[in-house]
């Protein structure tokens, strides 16, 4: 007997989680694509952004202003992070950047624990109200999350496609040396891209905050998930990562119909390992020639 209603609810859940994950992963893949930096602290940027959101919410009392504050703060933080820890590593091994960002991730995690304590913080959701979805009252807010994520990713896409600075970013991704020769300030582009990635992670964090609460350990889960989808989607490939986020989240949500959520994560790990074995360049990218 297949529980169709459960499956349908889990599909909706998977899509919502997938959009949040896509928001985190697209920043990660953008950063990897442009400067070969594997950002181990990306989930922690997500977590710190969410905490900044709780603080800003405490002061302003308005969710949307808090979201904006957290995003701007994290963009500045990301820029400082890049200049301080990653710029000196440019041209060294990608593995060195994993180590440096791993060190930073330890610092951010413990800073959050120290500042905010081990008890999860909650942000009050800006949109209350439920609608009936089979056997559950499904919160409208979750659909707002998916919509907002899609809007932010869409905005990024338009910026990259048509904006002057977006074209700079794409040019630097394609050929760092040539872009430099054409007069694009490459170090600045790197910093800005990292700031954009951090800001997107922060926006995902604040949007995600009301659903489960914010705690200092959630960063690592998201780092791991973002790694999984970025590799499944093809390292450095924006569209692939977004599709892979939705694909992996759907798999994981559907798995929770039959196993516990803690075990469902193994399904996405299995997806990663199979992808690496069968098609190491990523599932959702054209075969390289």
């Amino acid at each position, binding site marked *: 007997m297949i529980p169709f209603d459960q499956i349908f609810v889990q599909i909706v859940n998977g899509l919502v989680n997938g959009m949040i994950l896509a928001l985190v992963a697209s920043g990660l893949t953008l950063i990897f694509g442009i400067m*070969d930096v*594997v950002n181990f602290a990306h989930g922690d940027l997500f977590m710190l952004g969410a905490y900044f959101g709780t603080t800003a919410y405490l002061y302003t009392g308005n969710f949307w202003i808090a979201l904006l504050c957290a995003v701007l703060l994290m963009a500045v933080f990301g820029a400082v992070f890049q200049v301080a*820890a990653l710029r*000196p*590593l440019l041209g*060294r*091994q*990608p*593995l*060195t950047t*994993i*180590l*440096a960002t*791993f*060190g*930073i*991730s*330890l*610092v951010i*995690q*413990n*800073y959050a*624990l*120290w500042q905010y304590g081990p008890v999860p913080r909650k942000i009050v959701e800006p949109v209350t109200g439920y609608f009936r979805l089979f056997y559950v009252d499904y919160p409208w807010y979750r659909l707002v999350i998916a919509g907002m994520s899609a809007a932010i990713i869409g905005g990024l896409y338009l910026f990259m496609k048509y904006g002057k600075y977006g074209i700079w970013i794409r040019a630097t991704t394609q050929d760092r040396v040539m872009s430099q020769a054409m007069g694009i300030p490459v170090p600045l582009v790197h910093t800005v891209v990292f700031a954009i990635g951090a800001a997107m992670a922060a926006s995902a964090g604040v949007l995600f905050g009301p659903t489960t609460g914010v705690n200092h350990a959630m960063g*690592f889960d998201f780092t*791991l998930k973002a*790694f*999984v989808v970025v*590799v499944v989607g093809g*390292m450095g490939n924006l569209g692939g990562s977004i599709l892979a986020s939705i694909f992996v989240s759907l798999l994981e949500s559907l798995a929770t119909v039959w196993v*516990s959520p*803690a*075990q469902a*994560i*193994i399904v996405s*790990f299995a997806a*990663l*390992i199979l992808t*690496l*074995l069968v098609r*190491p*360049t990523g599932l959702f990218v054209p075969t*390289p020639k």
Partner: protein
Amino acid sequence: MSTVSPSTTGTSDRTLDTRARAVGPSRGYWTGFFLVVAVLAAVPYILPEFWQRFATEILIWGLYAMSSDILIGYTGMVSFGHSAFFGLGMYGAAAALLWAKPPNLWLAILVGLVAAAVVAAFVAFFSTRLRDIYFSITTLVFSQIFYVIIFTWTEVTGGENGLTFRAPAFGIPGVFTVPFTRDGMHWFVLGMVVLSYLVLRRITQSPFGMVLQSIRENEPRTRAIGYHVERYKIVSVMLSGCFAGLAGVLYAIQNKFAAPDFVLFLISGEAVIFNVMGGIGTLVGPVAGAAFFLLMKELFSRVFYEYYLIPVGIIFTLMVVFMPQGLLGAWRRQLNR
């Protein structure tokens, strides 16, 4: 994918250590070796109880760090999932100690090593097909899989609470048995670590070890010469996993418990931290790195309490940026003679 470069270590020391091998270890090296071992053996007489236990822990974590140096420093593959091997060694020892009546030390070591080796073979089969960061991510993911399994399979592994057991007695079967004292434990651990060091040193200087180092320096060329690179990589992961498992067994015996926390990602991260701090590719460097890390942890815990990772993380990042050779990296050539 195309941006990944074939070499996996810094360009500064791209020389193979073959010339050094022909020279052989200097007298100074052996003097230093025996001096350090003598000081470590004298620890029960000179240090108070707390620091003696601390020294034993450093030795165990040092062995763990040394095992991952085989991958990071010699084969050029950074494993971010070493805790799986450590943890499986721990749980293997726990299973043997709980099952056998009376608990037998050598059986625990054997079972722990076999468990770690089996898991290492499984992980290696998949992960060695990939290189650089893909290898790191795959090992990380595998260690998380084992963590989830151990954490959720409560009937067998005790879940979150882990397993507790009684320490076995030290002895040679049929000859004598004495229960472990704290001093005896220290000397036993010291003996195992020194033995492992000598074995690993011999392996890294053997023709097999030379092939591993040539994989690190230039994988396509090693393949072109005709070595079966994948096979060497699998053996190197298994070797590394076995010694990490041994460290896990020793830790389990010393502390009389096995817990899922030791399969968690942070322990894998610590292996990498030890290596980077101490200096990769030296075998003793990671031990020094472990000592340095644990001392800093102890020191900063007194000032910052459980947030000691804030200063330690900053120091680690600074060392990655400004001191990629680590503490003992400057003596890399001498240490590999």
